[in-house]
């Protein structure tokens, strides 16, 4: 069904044997279209990747980036159009064929085998080539590969304990070992801390200098400008533009992506911080959980946004889970409205007015096969039951319809299945689900992860609005500009410890990073504790 068109592509026919002066693209996609049932995922998209370039692919959720990647990696086949590798038309029927053509991809969540060691993971696809594994040679080669990337890892350690960033390094090493020509990086930075992003960029540049074509997908525009040589924008499955990075401004890029102007990227106006912050709602002292985190001290006020910054693995989520009763704390005190409380279950937390919006919509956040209405009422189902314990559908639907309108969830109705919505809209459904519990303390965990620019701005506006209404908000975010723009104060964690709370003019990108990476404050790790109360 996906037979390439018979016509030779214009201008590329002579490429393979002729050895032209100007290098032909390593990978070229022409006129690719793909349809899923009702949606045209890709419509006549063309893209070329040259050796030794970092090419950024940007676009909102649903723009067709993922589909294009799936076609390039052989996971899906295009309905029309063709893919050429080094001028040769190829038919990528499956992932193995794509790999054989020198196309590899790494993803936001690396696909490592947790129980195999680092070297085994790197050479996982090679292992069938010999009857016996030459272990010393494998370890030596793995070390060389990682060293060439400037990454230091114990190649004999199991992959299980590695950070996300290290797992990605393993995946990249694996790709290099396969002599990859095109490396697709699909939102590799979404879960990384700033520091780790730097490291990844260094590796990406090294690959570029070795002549690999890197296709880089990200939602963070700063990164696009930092790393890309050329930028391609997709929107609604169509190719909008491809330009050298030097000719593109941020505004131009956003306009290409959303098809309209977005005035304020982070949606936070100047008057935001001048609002009054109310009385204290929550007081946390010495909170800890054996072997996970310890010594967390902070106060939270009505209408305040307290940011939680730190690298991945700094245990920010664990603090939130303790406050929500999923993994109760085993030391320290929590006071809500001046009363000491013990939060031992999510139900108990809810009754105290605490809500926690998870960072993982799919695994922990939403019942994907159910409707928006069923999800929005889930934590407080009791409110929608009749005396006989039956769900009052009309009331449930009315409530969900209210959230659909208020949060501008793009779905035909509140009875629409959540799994069919885009990431940004699913995020909004999660907001609705927890707002429906009428929380006073709202714990947000990466509220803008994996959603596009437009939806991000809406989420930021929503958080601001909730704070203005007097809700106390604790916001975990790995997006440093975001956390700086949204928070009144920022609590920085490192390896399960509180490194300090920064407020007002102290809260700069540099200050947060130095606390988060431990460059400062090492000599006095408790420096932050004294400043806990603002």
């Amino acid at each position: 069904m996906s037979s390439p068109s018979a016509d030779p592509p214009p201008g590329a026919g002579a490429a393979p044997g002729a050895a032209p002066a100007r290098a032909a693209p390593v990978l070229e996609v022409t006129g690719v279209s793909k349809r899923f049932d009702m949606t045209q995922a890709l419509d006549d998209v063309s893209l070329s990747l040259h050796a030794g370039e970092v090419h950024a692919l940007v676009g909102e959720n649903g723009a067709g980036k993922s589909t294009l990647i799936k076609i390039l990696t052989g996971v899906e086949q295009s309905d029309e159009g063709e893919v050429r590798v080094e001028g040769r038309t190829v038919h990528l029927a499956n992932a193995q064929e794509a790999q054989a053509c020198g196309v590899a991809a790494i993803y936001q969540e690396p696909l490592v085998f947790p129980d195999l060691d680092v070297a085994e993971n790197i050479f996982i696809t090679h292992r069938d080539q010999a009857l016996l594994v030459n272990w010393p040679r494998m370890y030596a080669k793995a070390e060389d590969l990682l060293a060439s990337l400037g990454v230091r890892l114990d190649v004999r350690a199991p992959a299980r304990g590695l950070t996300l960033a290290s797992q990605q390094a393993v995946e990249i090493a694996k790709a290099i070992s396969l002599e990859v020509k095109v490396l697709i990086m699909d939102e590799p930075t979404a879960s990384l801390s700033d520091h780790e992003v730097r490291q990844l960029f260094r590796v990406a540049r090294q690959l570029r200098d070795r002549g690999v074509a890197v296709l880089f997908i990200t939602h963070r525009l700063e990164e696009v400008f930092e790393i890309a040589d050329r930028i391609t924008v997709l929107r609604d499955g169509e190719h909008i533009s491809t330009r050298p990075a030097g000719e593109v401004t941020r505004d131009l890029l956003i306009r290409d992506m959303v098809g309209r102007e977005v005035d304020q990227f982070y949606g936070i106006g100047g008057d935001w911080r001048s609002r009054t912050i109310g009385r204290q709602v929550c007081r946390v002292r010495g909170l800890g959980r054996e072997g996970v985190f310890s010594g967390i001290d902070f106060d939270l006020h009505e209408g305040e946004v307290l940011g939680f910054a730190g690298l991945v693995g700094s245990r920010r989520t664990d603090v939130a889970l303790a406050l929500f009763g999923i993994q109760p704390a085993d030391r320290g005190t929590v006071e809500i409205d001046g009363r000491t409380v013990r939060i031992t279950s999510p139900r108990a937390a809810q009754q105290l007015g605490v809500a926690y919006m998870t960072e993982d919509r799919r695994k922990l956040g939403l019942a994907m096969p159910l409707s928006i209405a069923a999800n929005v009422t889930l934590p407080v189902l009791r409110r929608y039951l009749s005396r006989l314990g039956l769900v009052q559908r009309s009331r449930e639907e009315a409530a969900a319809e209210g959230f659909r309108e208020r949060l501008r969830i793009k779905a035909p109705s509140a009875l629409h299945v959540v799994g069919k919505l885009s990431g940004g809209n699913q995020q909004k459904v999660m907001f609705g689900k927890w707002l429906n519990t009428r929380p006073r303390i709202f714990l947000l965990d990466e509220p803008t992860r994996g959603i596009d620019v437009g939806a991000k701005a809406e989420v930021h506006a929503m958080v601001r609005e909730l704070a203005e209404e007097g809700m106390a908000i604790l916001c975990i975010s790995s997006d440093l500009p975001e956390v700086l723009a949204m928070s009144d104060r920022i609590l920085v964690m490192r390896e399960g410890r509180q490194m300090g709370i920064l407020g007002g003019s102290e809260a700069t990108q540099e200050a947060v990073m130095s606390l988060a990476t431990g460059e400062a404050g090492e000599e006095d790790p408790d420096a932050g504790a004294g400043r806990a109360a603002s």
Partner: protein
Amino acid sequence: MNLPAGREPESESRPAPAPEPAPMQASRTSAAARLTSALGARLRSWEGFLAALLLCIIVMNALTSPSFLSVENQINLFALSIEKVIVVLIMTFVILNAEIDLSVASMMGLSACALGWLVQHGVPMPAALVACLLIGMLGGAFNGFWITVVRLPSLVVTLAMLIGFRGLARVLVEDRSIKAFPEWFEALGQQPLVGPFPLSLILFFALLVLAVIVLRYSGFGRQVYVIGINLEVARYSGIDVARVKMLLFTTSGFLSALAGVLFAARLGTVRGDMGLGFELDIITIVLLGGVSIFGGAGSVYGVILSILIVLYLRNGMSLSNITGHLQTGVIGIILILSAMIPNVRGFLARVARPGLFR
């Protein structure tokens, strides 16, 4: 549950590169178009397939044997398997919850044997009946304890209890059969109570209505589904997962014990191997009904159709003088085919779109 066959969502991206965004068109489809698409989906669904299969069986049976459609035959064919289909109802809940209860048939045997033993030892009938139902609830709660508190997999726990309950039943009755029930009890199991309907059938239909209401319309049913879909989402939403599971296993024990008592009344005698292997028939009926073994998907309606298919098929073959062993074989083939058909469709789709892994 209300899983509407909805349209594709409006995509998140903007409709046109025009400077001012065009208004969202929330619902363009007319009611008529929506109805046809819903109907189409229903016909293509598993329930649609089962209904077609059932219709074929009814037509075939009616043609080969004129007595098939008679009221006595209809009641008789239900009465012959009534113990199983009562347990099918609760098994539907348990499997939807992404758990399994393998101990149901052993519990049926245990409660029947306990009843015989108690009556033989001079316990008055009403007290013995209450004791049997209590044994069922306790046994179910015991399962529930290991599953929810100790967090062992239900497959392991109930497999152990399949052996444990059966062993207890055999200890109570040893290698004999007990026939010590008062006449009224046997009459209750064998003779019509209201009109042509025996007690067991009336109980089954009452439980069926209750099951439909609870699963489709109650908050508890919603929780059962959500836990089956994703236990972590349920936990993070503040649902008391342990309570729901405990309730399900206790009810499963209770209804199994009830089924055992009804079985004893119908046969008028008890033996240690009563109901041996029934759990497999029960689970296959639920799975044939379209309930996912991984939980979270399926409906009571599918299970009702599946009950009818299995009962009618067996009855039709009996009327045509096909032996019991061959009947079991035919039902086995139907089960295999019905399990294959959706997968064959998936396989063909994969062939048509090579490389599509999911």
